[in-house]
C-alpha cells in the first residue's frame, strides 16, 4: 500500500504528513514531524511516556495508528507552554525537582494536566490513581504527586 496522506491539527496548528499504514502516531510525531518531546518507553501501553491528547482525551500515542489522526486534534507536550510561559505544572515540576532523568516527564505532565482539568481538587489517592498509567523509574513518585497536589492548590487559588 502506498504512503497515506494525513491532515490533522497538532497543538492548534493545521498539519499534514505522509506515513506508512503501520506507523504509530508516536512514531509519526517523532520521526515524520520532529516533535520529539513525546517519548517511547515501552510501545505497548504500559508506561505512559507517549501520552498525548487525542480530541482532548488523554491517550497513549504508541497504540494509535498515525493514519487515525486524520481529521482529529492532537495535543503534545510541545503545546503545553504558551510561548515562553510555562504551564503551572511545568513550573512546579522544576521548582520541586519532580524529575530526574526526565524521560517520563512529558507524559506525566500531559496526564497530570488531563487529571486536573477533570478534578481540580484531587486527594492524594486520586492523584496516584489518575497517574497510575505513567511509570517513572527514577523519582519514586513522591515528588511527582506532591508537585501535582501543589499545582492544583495554586491553580485553584489563581482561579478564585
Amino acid at each position, binding site marked *: *500500500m502506498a504512503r497515506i496522506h494525513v491532515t490533522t491539527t497538532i497543538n492548534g496548528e493545521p498539519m499534514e504528513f505522509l506515513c506508512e*499504514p*503501520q506507523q504509530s502516531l508516536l512514531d509519526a510525531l517523532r520521526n515524520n514531524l520532529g516533535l520529539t518531546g513525546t517519548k517511547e518507553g515501552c510501545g505497548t501501553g504500559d508506561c505512559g511516556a507517549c501520552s498525548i491528547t487525542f480530541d482532548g482525551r488523554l491517550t*497513549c500515542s504508541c*497504540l*494509535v495508528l498515525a493514519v487515525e489522526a486524520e481529521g482529529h486534534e492532537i495535543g503534545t507536550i510541545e503545546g503545553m507552554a504558551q510561548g515562553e510561559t510555562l504551564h503551572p505544572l511545568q513550573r512546579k515540576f522544576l521548582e520541586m525537582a519532580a524529575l530526574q532523568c526526565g524521560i517520563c516527564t512529558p507524559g506525566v505532565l500531559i496526564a497530570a494536566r488531563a487529571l486536573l482539568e477533570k478534578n481540580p481538587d484531587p*486527594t492524594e*489517592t486520586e492523584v496516584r490513581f489518575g*497517574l497510575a498509567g505513567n511509570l517513572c523509574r527514577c523519582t519514586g513518585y513522591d515528588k511527582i504527586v506532591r508537585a501535582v497536589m501543589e499545582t492544583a492548590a495554586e491553580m485553584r487559588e489563581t482561579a478564585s
Partner: protein
Amino acid sequence: MNRFDYLRPASIAEAIAAAAQPGSAYLASGTNLLDLMKGDVVRPARLVDLGGLPGLDRIELLPDGGARIGARVRNADLAYHPEFSRRFPAVAEALLSGASAQLRNAATVGGNLLQRTRCAYFYDPASACNKRAPGAGCDARGGENRLHAVLGWSERCIATHPSDFCVPLAALGAVVEIEGQAGRREVPLEEFHLLPGETPERESVLAPGELVVALRLPAEAARFAAHARYVKLRERTSYAFAVVSAAAGLRIEQGVIAEARLALGGVAAKPWRARAAEAALAGARPDAASFRRAAEAALAEATPSGDNEFKIELARRIAARALALAAIGTPERLPALPASPFAPVPGAPLHG
C-alpha cells in the same frame, strides 16, 4: 508489525463485507490489537477501522431501567456516565479497576469484550501455543502457569480471559447485539465467549465479519443497584490484571436475599457466572456463613491447571468478600481505588 491494508468504511454493511474477507480484523481503539501486531502475535492483512462508522458511540438509558451501549463507547465514558453508574455501579467499578486513565479513555466496549488472553506464551511467537498456532502445543502446561485457569480449561489451553468489564456483565445477564452478513442476532454475554475445548483458537461465537454493534443491560439488572460490587485482587494495588476477581449483586428483602448474582474473573477463558452459588443464596440470610457456602458452590468444580491451586481458595475468598461488600451496600460514590480488596469490611475479620 506486518504490512497491511487500512480501510475506514463509512457504513456498517461495507465494514462487514470487508471484514468477512480472510485475513481481516476490525480495529476499534487498537489498545490490544496493535499491541499484538507489534509483537507479531497476529498479522492481519487488512484492518477495518470502526472509527468512521455511524451510530456506534451512544449510551442509551432505556425508559424501562435498562441500557444499550454502542460498541465504540469508550470504557471511561461509560464508567463516568452518572446515570449509567447509578443503575449499574458494579459495571462502573469494574471498568475503573482496569488498565490506566490513558487506556480507559481509548478502549471501547467491543474491544474490551474481544480482548485476547494475557498468557505470556500466547504473546511470545517463539513459544508453542495452540491458540496462536492450532496444533502447536501449549507451553503454559509445563511452564509459568500460576495465573492460568482453574475452571473450564482443557488439555489444549489453560488461558484466562482478562477482562474486568465482562465479569459484572455476565453476572447481570447482559446481551450482545451482533450484525453480520446473515443479518442481526443477539447472544447472551454468558454464551458469547467459548471455552477452549479442542479449539482454543475460537474464542467467541462471532463468525468471520460479524461485528458487535451494541451491548444491552436488561432492566432487571438495575434492581441490584443498591447492593452491587466488584472486587479485584491484583499483584499490586492498581494498574494490573486480575489474579481473581468477583462481581456480586444482591436483592435483599426483609433481611433475606431475594435474588443473588455472582460472576468470577481471572479463573477461566470466559467470565464465569456462578449459578450454583446464586441458587445457594436465594432465600438465605446475608451473612458470612451464607457467603462462604456460596463461594464454595462457585468453585466446586475448580481444578488447578498447573501451579495455581492457590487461586481456588483465593477465588472463594474474593467471591465471599464481594458478596459481603455488596450486602453492606453500594457506596454513594465510587471508591477512589475502585474494586480494591483492601477496602475494609465492617465487622468482618480481614480474611473472612
